[in-house]
C-alpha cells in the first residue's frame, strides 16, 4: 500500500531530446491511475522511470514516502506487466511466477502458497506445469498478471498489457484487471493509448501529449470539461467536433463567446432538428457518409462555406467535417441536407490556440 508521487519529473536523453518535460502526478493509496496519450507522448517512458528501468534526469519519484530515484527496480517494491508479457520462455508457468520470489530468498512453502493462490484467482491452476508457448495469448497475459500479484508489491505497473489481445478478450481482461485491482486494493499505474480503456479503468486519468501532462483528473470530469482541444479530441470516440470561430454564421450564433477561438461539440450533443436554439449552434450539413454501429448511427456531414482540408492531428477531424451521433439505426440518407442543432450548455469553448478552456 503506497502513494506514488511524481514531482516535476524530467527525462532528457544524452542526445538532448527531452522525452518528459516536467510531470507532476500524485496517485493516492489504492488508486488506479491511467496514463493515456498518443504514441511517442512519453507515457511509457514515464512508467519505466517509475519502474526504475529508465534513469530520472530531473525531479523526484516517491513511492510510499521514499524517494526512489537511485533505487534498483528490484528494490522499489513494484511489479510490472509488459506489453509482450516478457514471460521466461524456458520456465513453466509455476516457475515464471515463483522466480522473483525465489530471488528474494522466500521459503519454498510460502512461494507455493502464493503461486497457487494467484493461479486460483486467475484460473491458471490446471496449467501451472505448462510452458508459456503452450498457452493462448489471454492465458499468457494472466500469467504475467500472476507474476505481478504473487509479489504483493506496493505498486502495480502496467505497460499496455492488453494491446496484444484481440478485441473481445481485451474487454474481458479489462474488466478482470479492474476487479482484481479493486480486490487487492494495490496502487496501480497503467499506460495505454486506448482512450476507452483509459476511461473505463481510471480513478485518475492523466492525459499526456509531447512529454507533458495536458490534464489530470477524474475521467468523467475530463470528458465533460476537457482543458484543451487536444484532450477534447483525444478523449471520446468518435472525437469531439472542433470548429474555428471566424467571422461566419457560427460566431454570431453563440452567446457569450468572448475570448473563444474554437468551439467544440461532442457528436452525441447534436440533435437533428429544424428548431432553433437561442445562443446555441445550428449547422447546415450535407450527409457524406453513414456508420451503423447498431445501437447508434454516426452521420458524417460537411458544412457549406467551409474550406475542405486535412486534419491537423491524427484522430482529429478534417476541417469542415462534422460527426453527428443519432441514436438507433435510422439516420438520414447520403447526400441529404440536414440541420444539426446543439444547445448552448453543450458547447465547449477554447482559446484560438486550443491551449485553454474558456467558460462554458
Amino acid at each position, binding site marked *: 500500500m503506497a502513494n506514488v508521487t511524481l514531482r516535476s519529473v524530467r527525462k532528457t536523453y544524452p542526445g538532448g531530446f527531452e522525452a518528459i518535460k516536467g510531470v507532476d502526478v500524485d496517485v493516492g493509496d489504492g488508486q488506479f491511475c491511467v496514463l493515456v496519450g498518443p504514441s511517442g507522448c512519453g507515457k511509457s517512458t514515464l512508467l519505466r522511470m517509475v*519502474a*526504475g*528501468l529508465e534513469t530520472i534526469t530531473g525531479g523526484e519519484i516517491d513511492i510510499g514516502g521514499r524517494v526512489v530515484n537511485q533505487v*534498483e*527496480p*528490484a528494490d522499489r517494491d*513494484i*511489479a*510490472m506487466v*509488459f*506489453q*509482450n508479457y*516478457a*514471460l*521466461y*520462455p*524456458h520456465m513453466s508457468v509455476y516457475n515464471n511466477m515463483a*522466480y*522473483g520470489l525465489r*530471488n*528474494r530468498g522466500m521459503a519454498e512453502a510460502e512461494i507455493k502458497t502464493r503461486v497457487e493462490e494467484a493461479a486460483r484467482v486467475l484460473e491458471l491452476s490446471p496449467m501451472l506445469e505448462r510452458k508459456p*508457448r503452450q498457452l493462448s495469448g489471454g492465458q499468457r497475459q494472466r500469467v504475467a498478471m500472476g*507474476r505481478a500479484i504473487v509479489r504483493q508489491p506496493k505498486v502495480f505497473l502496467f505497460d499496455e498489457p492488453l494491446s496484444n489481445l484481440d478485441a473481445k478478450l481485451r474487454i474481458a481482461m479489462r474488466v478482470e484487471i479492474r476487479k482484481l485491482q479493486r480486490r487487492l486494493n494495490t496502487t496501480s499505474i497503467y499506460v495505454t493509448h486506448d482512450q476507452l480503456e483509459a476511461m473505463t479503468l481510471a480513478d485518475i486519468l492523466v492525459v499526456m501529449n509531447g512529454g507533458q501532462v495536458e490534464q489530470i483528473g477524474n475521467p468523467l470530469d475530463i470528458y465533460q470539461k476537457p482543458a484543451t482541444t487536444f484532450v477534447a479530441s483525444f478523449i471520446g470516440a468518435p472525437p469531439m467536433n472542433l470548429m474555428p470561430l471566424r467571422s461566419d454564421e457560427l460566431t454570431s450564433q453563440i452567446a457569450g463567446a468572448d475570448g473563444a477561438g474554437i468551439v467544440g461539440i461532442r457528436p452525441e450533443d447534436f440533435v437533428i432538428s429544424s428548431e432553433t436554439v437561442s445562443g446555441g449552434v445550428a449547422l447546415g450539413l450535407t450527409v457524406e457518409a453513414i456508420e451503423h454501429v447498431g445501437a447508434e448511427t454516426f452521420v458524417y456531414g460537411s458544412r457549406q462555406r467551409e474550406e475542405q482540408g486535412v486534419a491537423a492531428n491524427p484522430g482529429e477531424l478534417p476541417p469542415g467535417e462534422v460527426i453527428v451521433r443519432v441514436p438507433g439505426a435510422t439516420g438520414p440518407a447520403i447526400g441529404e441536407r440536414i440541420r444539426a442543432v446543439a444547445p448552448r450548455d453543450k458547447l465547449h469553448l477554447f482559446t484560438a490556440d486550443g491551449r485553454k478552456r474558456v467558460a462554458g
Partner: protein
Amino acid sequence: MVEEEGFQRYLAHVILWIGIAIVAFPVYLAIVASTQDNAVIANGQMSLLPGGHFLETYYQTLFVGTSGSTREPVLNMMLNSLVMALLIAVGKIAISIISAYAIVYFRFPFRMAIFWIIFITLMLPVEVRIYPTYKIVADLHLLDSYAGLSLPLIASATATLLFRQFFMTVPDELLEASRIDGAGPFRFFWDTLLPLSRTNMAALFVILFILGWNQYLWPLLITTRDDMQTIQVGIRKMITTTDALTEWPVVMATALLAMLPPVFVVVVMQKLFVRGLVETEK
C-alpha cells in the same frame, strides 16, 4: 515435390544411387582393406570382399599400434584427440558466450572497439599466426600438453558473433522483467540467457567438436612425444615408413576409427537440433 512418372523416376533414382556409390565406395574400400592381410594389399591384389583379419587388425590398431612407424596404440591417440576436441569445443563456447554477453548487455568504455578487435581476428586463422602462436605456447612451456593443444584454438570470433546475434534477438523486456524480479547480471545470464541459448550451444558444439577433432597442423607442430599424438597426426605418420611396408590394414582401421566420434556427435546432437527447430521459443 513433383511426382515423376515411370522412366524419368527410375532415371532419377539411378543417378542418385550412382552419387551414393561414389561417396560411399572409398569408405567401403577402407572397411574391406582393414580386414585383409597387408601382404595381399601390398601385392596390389586386394579383393573387394572383406577378409578374415577383422578382430586381429582392430585389436592391433587400438591397443598396440603399428609395428614400424608410430608404435603408439590408436586408442591413446583417440583419447588425445577427444580431450583436445572437447576442450576446444567447450572452451570456445564458454569464452564466446561470456564475451558476447559482455558486448551485448554491458556499457563499458571502448565496447565497440573491443567488438571490432574480436571481429578482425576472424581474418587471422591459426595458420596465419602460427609462428607467434607457437612462440607464445613454447615460452609458456605448454608444448606436449593438452593446454598447448587446445588454448590457442579456443579464442573464437565466429562463436562470439553468433551468440551476439542471438542475444540481440532476445527481447529487452526479458532483461527488464528479470531486473524487476531481483535477478542481477549473473542470475539473468545463468537463469535466462543460458537456457535460451541451449540449441545454439548444441549447434556450435557439433561444429566446433568436429573442427577440433580434425585439427592437423597445430598438433603436428606442438606435439613431439608419441604419447601426446592426436589421431589425425598419427594416421599421417603411419603411412610414411622408412624401411618397412606401410601397414595398410592398420592405417585403414585408424581412418575408420577417426571417423567414429564426429559421426557419433552428429547423430546424437541431431536430435537436439531438430527439437530446437521444432519448438520455437518465443
